[in-house]
């Protein structure tokens, strides 16, 4: 089986509009969460989000395309372009024919749907915008990427809540490794900061009253974020032959279901997913030096994830660095796994582990090394990126450093 490497990445997040801005903020421990002053937020009990600032669609897309894309699809196309540009890939007819595009989105373009509902129920109009369906469908991100590049291979979208894009990348990794496709574009995108969705999260009572403090005793919940990340995956030998500079290798993918509760996580499902990712990678637990945690900063997640890591790693858990970059880019739902896979890949490449920002007080139930507040210069051989969804659907990626 060919080894599969990441040769390009694009990221848009609350930390900036590029991969480089994302990484520099992570290394600096800079938090992209802020109080939002919009009219919508005046009517919401929580005030903080990790929104993407300064994204002007006209800077990236032509007018005709903009009208056909909801914000989440715009993020997808722009990050896919950045990823392809970094990879240095030259499109050939064979690559366009074979390349897979797999994106993850939980909410997709439902803000366009909400706009339609406002017309119907508030403005009492008897019609909605004719593009409501193509704007809102979650697969629009994949479709627009395929049209941008003329890619006609296997293309689809996965929706597993907060694990969507980890499932997407894992699936793409397996397809490239098995030779089903010659390369893949995979990642996730989300733009969930619209009124109806904010209200729905408010009702869940899991949103922080201030900022996101994963694993910290005084955490008060997650903070929603928006953004996207796309990765170019291809066989190592092909990448090297064309002179590309791979960022990191994807070596394993594990996925499980809890079959427990629709929102309460259990340690066993995540633990099994981590074990399966290690087995798929052919890695011993002791080879893992870092885990980019799911780390939402809800009590349920943080305690369950800590317990799951202890189940898998036993004594080695005390020698692992674990951090949640959601403390800086927020919880981007369907895009989270992709942002965090990108962070994981860069941490291996650069030899720097991003911190858990906003960490203040140790929680006795979360007793791991969470790399509090300051990035750490440490070269690890391999890492895991954890994604655990509402509904008990778990996806874990294993990545390894390239020498």
């Amino acid at each position, binding site marked *: 089986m060919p080894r599969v490497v990441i040769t390009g990445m694009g990221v848009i997040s609350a930390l900036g509009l590029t991969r480089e801005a994302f990484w520099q903020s992570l290394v600096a421990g800079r938090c992209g969460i802020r109080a939002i002053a919009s009219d919508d937020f005046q009517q919401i*009990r929580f005030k903080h989000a990790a929104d993407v600032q300064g994204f002007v669609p006209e800077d990236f897309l032509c007018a005709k395309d903009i009208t056909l894309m909801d914000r989440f699809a715009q993020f997808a196309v722009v990050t896919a372009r950045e990823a392809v540009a970094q990879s240095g890939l030259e499109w050939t007819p064979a690559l366009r024919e074979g390349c897979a595009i797999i994106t993850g989105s939980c909410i997709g373009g439902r803000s366009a749907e909400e706009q339609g509902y406002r017309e119907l129920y508030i403005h009492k109009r008897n019609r909605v915008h004719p593009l409501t369906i193509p704007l809102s469908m979650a697969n629009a991100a994949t479709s627009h990427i395929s049209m941008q590049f003329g890619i006609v291979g296997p293309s689809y979208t996965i929706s597993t809540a907060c694990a969507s894009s980890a499932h997407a990348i894992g699936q793409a990794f397996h397809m490239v490794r098995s030779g089903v496709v010659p390369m893949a574009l995979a990642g996730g995108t989300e733009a969930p900061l619209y009124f109806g969705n904010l209200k729905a999260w408010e*009702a*869940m*009572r899991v*949103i922080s009253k201030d900022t996101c403090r994963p694993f910290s005793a005084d955490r*008060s919940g997650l903070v929603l974020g928006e953004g996207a990340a796309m990765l170019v995956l291809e066989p190592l030998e092909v990448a090297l032959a064309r002179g590309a500079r791979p960022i990191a290798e994807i070596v394993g993918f594990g996925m499980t279901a809890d079959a427990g509760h629709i*929102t*309460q996580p259990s340690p066993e499902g995540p633990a099994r997913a981590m074990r399966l990712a290690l087995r798929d990678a052919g890695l011993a637990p002791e080879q893992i030096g870092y885990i980019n945690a799911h780390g939402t900063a809800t009590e*349920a997640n943080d305690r369950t994830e800590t317990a799951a890591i202890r189940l898998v790693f036993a004594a080695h858990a005390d020698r692992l660095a674990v951090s949640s970059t959601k403390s800086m880019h927020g919880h981007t739902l369907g895009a989270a796994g992709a942002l965090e896979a990108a962070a994981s890949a860069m941490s291996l490449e650069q030899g720097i582990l991003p911190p858990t920002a906003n960490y203040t007080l140790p929680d006795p139930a979360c007793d791991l090394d969470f790399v509090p507040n300051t990035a750490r210069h440490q070269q690890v051989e391999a890492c895991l990126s954890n994604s655990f969804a509402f509904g008990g659907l778990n996806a874990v990626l294993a990545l390894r450093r390239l020498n």
Partner: protein
Amino acid sequence: MSDSIQDRVLKIIANTRRLPLESVRPDSSFEELGVDSLDRLNILFDLESEFDIEIDDEEAKKVQNIPEMIAGVTHLVEAKSQASPEN
């Protein structure tokens, strides 16, 4: 409006768990009634509708038992009636 706050709270808990009303008493624990985290959300949501109040997330997290829930609702209902004296 003839029911007391306590009766109305117990009724909401019973409805959420689909239990006979008589099985929910002030000294019942949430555990023995099988109230999980999502049931709590539903109960809070119904309490807000029933009493036209807003229950703060952090305050809600502190509630350990039914008397504390009744006390919390009573406090919010009283605060509301003081804020709007025409009631």
